[in-house]
Every structure is written in C-alpha cells, then in structure tokens.
C-alpha cells in the first residue's frame, strides 16, 4: 500500500515515530484568562518596588529639612507621579488580596488533629491587615 510521505518530513523508523513538539508561544500568558490574571499578580511586584522607592525618597526628604520635604510633596502631587502612584496602589492592593489567599494554601495549621480550613486563615489575615493599616494610619496622623 502506498502511503503518501510528506516531502519535508525526515525519515522515521517504525519504532521511533517523529514526535511533534509545539513551541510555547511568547504570548502564552495572553491565551488564557487564568494565565493573564497570574502574570498580573506577578507584576504587582513592580508596584511594591515603586512603593519602596517612594518611601526612600520620603525618608531622604524628611532628613534634609522642611524645604526639601516641600519639594518632594510638590513632585509627588505632579500628574505623572500621581498616575504612577494610582497604578502602583492598585497593583499593591491586588498583591495583598491575592497574597493572603495564596499563603493560606501554603500553610498547614492543625488544631486538635484537624486541619484548619484555608478560608479561616485568609479571613483572619484580612482582618489583621485592616487592623494594622488602621494602627499605622493613626500613628501617622496623630
């Protein structure tokens, strides 16, 4: 029986067929909504880095005196910086929300022999986050 053979196919033996390997696309993270959400979650690290830089600038300005601090305040209020800050704030909030859900999966906490459900661990983390944020805000504002 004549089986048509593709001209570009290299010869194969009956005991080792020519496997087809798909190369993973550079845009693999756009092909699926769950992958895209994952990459967005990973990109929150940029918001975290931005926050650290802002914090360092703030400390430096405070150390240099009231004039330097005023200059920093003006720079922080400029439209470009505000835009970057808003984006970073959204990223950082997304990090917080996803982090508590992830870390609950990674931890196994046992009480009286039974495993504490992950929902309880993440819920208590969220509450703790609100409390800590409140305390920090109070410390800064009083």
């Amino acid at each position: 029986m004549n089986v048509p053979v593709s001209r570009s196919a290299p010869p194969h033996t009956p005991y080792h067929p020519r496997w087809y390997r798909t190369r993973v696309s550079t845009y693999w993270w756009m092909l699926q909504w769950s992958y895209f959400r994952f990459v967005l979650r990973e990109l929150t690290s940029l918001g975290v880095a931005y926050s650290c830089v802002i914090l360092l600038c703030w400390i430096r300005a405070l150390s240099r005196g009231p004039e330097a601090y005023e200059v920093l305040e003006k720079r922080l209020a400029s439209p470009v910086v505000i835009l970057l800050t808003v984006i970073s704030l959204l990223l950082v909030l997304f990090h917080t929300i996803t982090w508590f859900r992830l870390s609950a999966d990674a931890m196994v906490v046992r009480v009286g022999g039974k495993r504490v459900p992950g929902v309880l661990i993440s819920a208590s983390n969220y509450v703790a986050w609100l409390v800590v944020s409140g305390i920090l805000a109070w410390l800064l504002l009083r």
Partner: protein
Amino acid sequence: MAKRPIEPLFWTLFSGGGVISAFFVPVLLFLIALAFPLRWIAPPSYEALHNLVSLPLSRLFLFVVCSLPLFHWAHRFRYTLYDGLQIKHLSEFINVLCYGGAIVGTVVSAYLLWNFH
C-alpha cells in the same frame, strides 16, 4: 551530599517580603503618595513626621519595610522575566539586576535611616 543551592534563601526573602508588603505597603503608599500630596487628608506637620521617623523603632520598622519588599520584588520579577519573556538564557544578567537592585536598595535604606537627623 548534593550541593546546596542558594534558592531557599531567596525564596524565604521573597516570602518575608511578601508578608511585609501585603500588610504595610498599601496604607503607607496611599497616605504618603496620594492622600497627603493631594490634601485628601490634612497631612501632619513636617516636625511631627520628622519626630516620628527619628524614633529608633520607626527607623527599624522603615528599614524592614524598605528592604524585604525589594527582595520580594527581585525574586518575583526575576521569574516573571524568565517565564513571561522567556529570556532565561540571560539569567546571569537578570539575577544581577534583580538581587543587585534589592541589595542596593537595602544599603541605601540602611544608610538613610542610620544617618537620619
């Protein structure tokens, strides 16, 4: 005995940085970079903030909040570049960029907070 890679150290720093940034960074960024400059909330006076930051406990706290999250960024961004852009062959360059950046940030924050006056 198999050789012990340094990966667990970086992962631990990533985790610690993730916890610190999850708890403390949102409120700090919101207040310092949004609410105060835009006057949504009346910012405290320069003297009040200066006195608050100069406390030893504040300096320690700010050092932790400025350094560990940078290591969190370093580890996470490194893997985002590896997987997202598939440039793992540039791994030496990426590692220096990421962890080097985090080390620089840590040194800068230590210097600033130690010499805060």
